[in-house]
């Protein structure tokens, strides 16, 4: 009975966190994107996300078109986390613009693709007070 209660308590604590935070992370990613919308970037409705431990990375492969300009924005709801996002071409070469940035729970990477093709968007939770940190990635283009 006691263990059942404990389990229920743990689940009660864990489920809202586990379920809610990616959506929250998306809100932060969109917050990072907001100033760029005013500059004419169309932000896609879709987003990509999950959770990572500190020091872990994930990769998203993305088709980009030469002639367009892209920003990728990464966010997490964990205030004291440090996240990063970087863009590599299909050969593994860092190809983002120097104005790409990372600021605590936000990060953004900017690319003007030198050629049309697949690119790797690498997201990382570099440090976090949480065991698992939710992240969300959105992108926009113009």
């Amino acid at each position, binding site marked *: 009975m006691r263990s059942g209660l404990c389990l229920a308590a743990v689940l009660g604590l864990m489920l809202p966190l586990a379920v809610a935070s990616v959506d929250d992370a998306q809100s932060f990613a969109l917050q990072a994107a907001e100033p760029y919308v005013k500059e004419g970037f*169309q932000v896609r409705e879709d987003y990509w996300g999950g959770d990572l431990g500190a020091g872990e*990375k994930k*990769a998203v*492969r993305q*088709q980009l*078109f*030469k002639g367009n300009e892209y920003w990728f924005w990464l966010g997490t709801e964990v205030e004291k986390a440090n996240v990063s996002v970087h863009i*590599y071409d299909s050969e593994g070469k860092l190809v983002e613009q120097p104005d790409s940035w990372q600021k605590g729970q936000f990060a953004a990477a900017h690319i003007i693709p030198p050629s049309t*093709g697949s690119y790797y968007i690498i997201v990382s939770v570099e440090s976090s007070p949480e065991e698992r940190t939710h992240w969300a990635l959105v992108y926009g283009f113009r």
Partner: protein
Amino acid sequence: MMSLRKTFKLSLLAVLGASISTTASTTAAEAPKRIDVSQLSKRVDDVVVPLPNEVFGALNKLGGVNWKEYVRNEKGSNFRERPRIALLLGTVIADGFIAVQAEDAPAVKDIGQRVLGLAKGIGVGNSITPHAKAITEAADKRNWPGVRQELDRTQNSVQQAMNEMKDEKLSHLVSLGGWLRGTEVLTSVVTKRFSEDGAELLHQPDLLNYFDQRLSAMPEFNLKLLQDIRAALGEVRPLIDVGDAQITHASVKRINEITARLDAAIITK
């Protein structure tokens, strides 16, 4: 509070993780200049499918395109098979982006209603009704960025609703229908006014592989059209997977013939 709908979609998006082997050390402030993608590419087997307007935007920058020429007004056929409706839905949403490029408000509004009808036919009409209304309102105001955003939301909502109903495969067919229509128009434009930069926009071998894998996982649909599409993707692959070489005018023309044939098969019984 996060909706389960979004949670489910995120799990389906299958953004696959990979431990990244780097050839240089990095700090929080500095990214490695190079990573080893040989390991990475084996472990990331998914790719983000771009919206048709991403390629249209790039195409537009290469010179004035007469988008009105590509606006399609006919209503098209009605289907009962859900995979066919899904393919057609993707195609019609792509037509919506074309109509926006052409700034053709009546066509946009017709397409909004057509999308709604198809979504109802596949059982996801409820999630589309507000978007169809917003498309009409934005078209009336000639708010083209607004229409684009609503078309994006429409596709997103359709696919989320399909995923909720465990119809992820139909969701892939929506993406495929849009990609085929977008590629048809891209190749038509570039065939008429060839440029190397225009042809380079076809360099999408990972997307071809992605769609091929998805189609191979749909044996239960058993539709000749899907088999034809898969065979056609096999025809297109060597034409665009050319490494550092240029995609030729003849290849662009051939891809246009293939995608136009598929598009005709998608919209007619």
